[in-house]
């Protein structure tokens, strides 16, 4: 299977703080790669670095074999990367419809088809189609954030903690959806819900203090009680 995204020894500073201090990982086409690690480990910063929001000062990020380390965020995104931020990034005074509209690159049939697909997945969004994004419930916002990333026709999705704030039944749906989407979209997932991560993840990368400490197949991790206890506080 070919590598879609490769992050090699990435170092990132925010202000004068050295946040990422050597992150390595890769995402293979058609797989779900999970980033794990405790609060403040640098998971979110890794996603932001891939997107060029907090550009790497050292190291290399390659997408589809092309270096994107120094590119501007919108250029990176237009290469086919979608993002669901941890704070959802909903445009509060835009309606649900408008939020979706801003995210659509084109309004062709394919995109409309995708939109219908996510609306079926999250019927709440359909109900509140004309409502301001800021007035949605926490879970509805999370749904909207994901829906927005889906309609962008992306090859790679970076999703930061999708299960946060969702009802168990919706989490199930999201998991199903992600598994379904694997067919045409590669996914990098940051997830604290280990149940979810372990169910849908193919590979994992473990971050601690801004560094990759371990990576491998998800199956192996599920077995490895020691690692789980040490870095994830479970087991």
């Amino acid at each position, binding site marked *: 299977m070919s590598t879609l995204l490769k992050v090699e020894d990435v170092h990132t500073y925010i202000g004068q703080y050295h946040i990422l201090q050597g992150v390595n990982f890769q995402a293979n086409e058609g797989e779900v790669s999970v980033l794990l690690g405790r609060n403040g480990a640098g998971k979110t910063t890794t996603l932001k670095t891939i*997107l060029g*929001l907090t550009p790497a000062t050292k190291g290399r990020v390659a997408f589809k074999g092309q270096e994107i380390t120094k590119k*501007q*965020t*919108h250029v990176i*995104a*237009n290469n086919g990367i*979608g*993002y669901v*931020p941890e704070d959802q*990034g909903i*445009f*509060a*005074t*835009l*309606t649900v*419809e*408008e*939020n979706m*509209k*801003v*995210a659509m*690159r084109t309004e062709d049939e394919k995109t409309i088809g995708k939109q219908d697909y996510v609306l079926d997945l999250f019927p709440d969004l359909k109900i509140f189609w*004309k409502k301001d994004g800021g007035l949605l419930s926490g879970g509805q916002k999370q749904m909207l954030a994901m829906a*927005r990333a889906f309609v*962008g026709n992306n090859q790679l999705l970076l999703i930061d903690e999708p299960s946060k704030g969702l009802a168990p039944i919706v989490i199930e749906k999201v998991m199903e959806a992600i598994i379904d989407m694997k067919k045409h979209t590669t996914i990098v997932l940051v997830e604290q819900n280990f149940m979810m991560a372990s169910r849908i993840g193919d590979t994992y990368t473990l971050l601690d203090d801004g560094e990759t400490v371990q990576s491998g197949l998800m199956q192996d991790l599920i077995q490895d009680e020691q690692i789980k206890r040490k870095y994830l506080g479970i087991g």
Partner: protein
Amino acid sequence: MELLMNLTINGLATGMLIFLLAAGLTLIFGLMDVLNFAHGGLFAWGAFSSVWFYSLTESFVLAILGAILTGIILGFITEKLIIKPVYGNHVQQILITLGFMLVLTEMLKVVFGPNQIAAKTPAYFAGSWEIGDVIIIKYRVFIIVVGFLVFGIVQYILKKTKVGLIVRAGVMNKEMVQTLGININNVFLYVFIAGAVLASLGGALMAPYSGVIYAEMGMEFAILGFIVVVIGGMGSFPGSLLAAILVGLTGSYMAYYVPSLSLAVNMLIMAIVLIFRPQGLFRVKG
């Protein structure tokens, strides 16, 4: 009756003129949330450049085009040099744009001299029609037409394209918009230039209205523009139009019926509107 007609037509025309002055600010201040105190400078440059082009070419159309060109160039420079580093930071915006306003105003004097300059109305718009006791000033009719035209075009663009949405989204969360693949810096640049063009167009149309232009005119009219944008409800074009007409008409009636208050009229309208509708007349909606 004639009196009322006169007051109304003139008030409406003044309102339209004020709308044209405020249109650029509705984009830059209302939509992009940039406190641009240099807006009046762009406006004054529009006025001066149109008068200059007019004296050169004797063509009103070319004068307007000249002002628009000035607006494009100045808008580009202003956004790149002055506004870009301070998006989202009102405090810095105030300081840097006030500084730039001083530069713009003084540069006017360097280029065009420190004196006021007479602005001529093109022959075909000069004078007025008299129908009974109703006097209709030709140029004011032209202003009303242009006002509606500008309103229509801008409203069409905002409604039919995503630009308006993208700008509002970008003001709320710039990073998020970028991650959706939108080059928000360029969008902001173009919208700012559009605002600057509207400002200089406003200036160009203002010149023959009052017949005189001067370097300090910018600040006065910018404040009027800010008033209109705020009482219209930040960023709403219909709101700005309505507010401008309100200001124009009230000014016209008050000056006739309660002249002792005419000094206070704009401030009075603003105070009353804001006390009773703290969000302005219109709230920006989809």
